[in-house]
């Protein structure tokens, strides 16, 4: 008799998403929803959606959600956690949101050791607005604002946020994972669950999981080519691993 061993988690609403075919957001959403189901925390969790492709995350996560100003999610999360220490607060942010406009907010939330969980989706472009360069766009990568490829002498270097944040004593757990292979996605699930468990156990400090995520549409690749590019190029610039905690 066949037993079902894998299905959509409850914390993920049963509806189509607006994400492009092969987009990593859908995978990240499922891993977080599985974690919420497995830890049984739907009734205590409040999620924060960024401005970016995932701004509509409140249509997909079946928990209390808020959508906030671009880059300000860590500050909103701070306001929520400080006044509701018993709630589980997660901030879901893209690379434009967290590493461009919101750099100040994530560094200060980390430096204060806010007991929140940050899920940082790094897909190396601004997706929602049409594929412009992001702080994490890698060198020579063509985007709609680096038509000749990112040139360090003009646009600087890809920003390694996770490494940056490991220097702050206020961070207790930082891991960079990737969504381009099932084995790595399993590991990403473990990392996300660990981050949520730290918050659940009032561990003193901020936990952040960076997820390298495919963006086939604005990398101008097929989804399969995109995961190959992540394997061959992206993980060189953004090495995977548990950086802290």
């Amino acid at each position, binding site marked *: 008799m066949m037993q079902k061993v894998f299905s959509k988690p409850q914390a993920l609403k049963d509806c189509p998403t607006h994400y492009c075919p092969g987009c990593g957001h859908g995978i990240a959403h499922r891993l977080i929803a599985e974690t919420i189901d497995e830890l049984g925390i739907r009734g205590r969790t409040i999620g924060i959606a960024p401005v970016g492709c995932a701004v509509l995350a409140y249509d997909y996560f079946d928990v209390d959600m808020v959508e906030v*100003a671009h880059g300000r999610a860590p500050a909103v999360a701070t306001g929520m956690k400080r006044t509701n220490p018993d709630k589980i607060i997660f901030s879901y942010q893209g690379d434009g949101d967290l590493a461009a406009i919101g750099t100040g907010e994530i560094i200060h939330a980390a430096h204060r050791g806010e007991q929140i969980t940050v899920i940082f989706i790094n897909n190396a472009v601004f997706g929602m607005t049409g594929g412009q360069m992001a702080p994490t766009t890698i060198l020579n990568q063509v985007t709609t604002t680096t038509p000749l490829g990112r040139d360090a002498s003009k646009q600087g270097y890809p920003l390694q946020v996770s490494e940056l944040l490991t220097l702050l004593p206020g961070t207790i757990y930082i891991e960079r994972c990737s969504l381009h292979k099932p084995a790595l996605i399993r590991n990403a699930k473990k990392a996300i669950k660990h981050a949520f468990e730290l918050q659940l156990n009032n561990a003193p400090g901020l936990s952040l999981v960076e997820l390298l995520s495919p963006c086939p549409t604005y990398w101008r690749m097929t989804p399969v080519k995109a995961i190959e590019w992540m394997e061959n190029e992206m993980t060189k610039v953004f090495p995977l691993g548990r950086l802290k905690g």
Partner: protein
Amino acid sequence: MNERILMCGNEALAEAAIIAGLDAYFGYPITPQNEVPEYMSKRMPEEGRVFLQSESELASINMVFGAAATGKRVMTSSSSPGISLMQEGISYLAGAELPAVIVNVMRGGPGLGNIAPSQGDYFQATRGGGHGDYRTIVLAPSSVQELVDCMPLAFDLADQYRTPVLVLADGILGQMMEPVVFNKKPRRKLPPKDWALTGADNRKQNIVRSLWLKEGVVEQHNYDLQAVYKEIEKNEILCEQYEVDDAEIVVVAYGIAARIVRGAVNKARQEGIKVGWIRPITLWPFPTEQINKAADNFKIFLTVELSCGQMVEDVKLAVAGKAPVVFYGRAGGGVPTVEQVLEKIRQLTLRPENII
């Protein structure tokens, strides 16, 4: 708790907020309101409540947004340049219909300006300094006691209408000390915050948002907000007037300017000049009808502000052409003296015919 205490405005407004049930304060240092976060940093932990100094006013207003989204009573304070940084956040509070109180202890501008008192943020406050069609209730006290009384009112208004409320003070009001009494007034009957994010514990999820991409939804949302604003305009206008009925000249001023005008009008009355004053306490909703009625029988309206003239436009709109409206003010931290206002009043009696 209701004996008289000598307190500076910044500390008094903080204590009043605490008495009004403030759950959390987020702020950032900026003169001339530094005593607010300083006072809060001592008193809020004493009450077991949240105080946090943020990394910027941008962060402060978004921390306010977070706490407000979970149904808490929350405020921030800053001064003009900091309030400019908060405008996007205030627009989000209005769009997401979240209650919050923001205190602006105004200083000289534009730019870094100076740290002297000013009323140069009137347009920003009353027209909505951020993007989109929204209004914010603006309270303008003109004494430390009234500043204290404004705080519980601001929180009640914010909760009742689910909107950010601005309390507009200035460098003088913030820094000067006056005796105050903290009488704990009961709260208004306020609607339950069943929209708040408290964790969907066997209930449907709540979403706090200001984005709706589907066609026509934000349009309708705007009309819903406008309906709330109409309600506020109907119920919440506060305005004081003095000896206007027989007056030939009416001076309109708010906040600290109104204190100066009071002195000038009293002196002018002693000189036999028939002059009165009108003092808007809510700058939005503006007391348009009250001023319009005062203009029924011909008067000259003089608006006095610590600026180059901003509220004067609302006075002109209110008077609607029935009478001339002239302006006198000093900007960039300049403070008109009673003598200067009195001189202006005297001039209006000598040559009424060549008024613009």
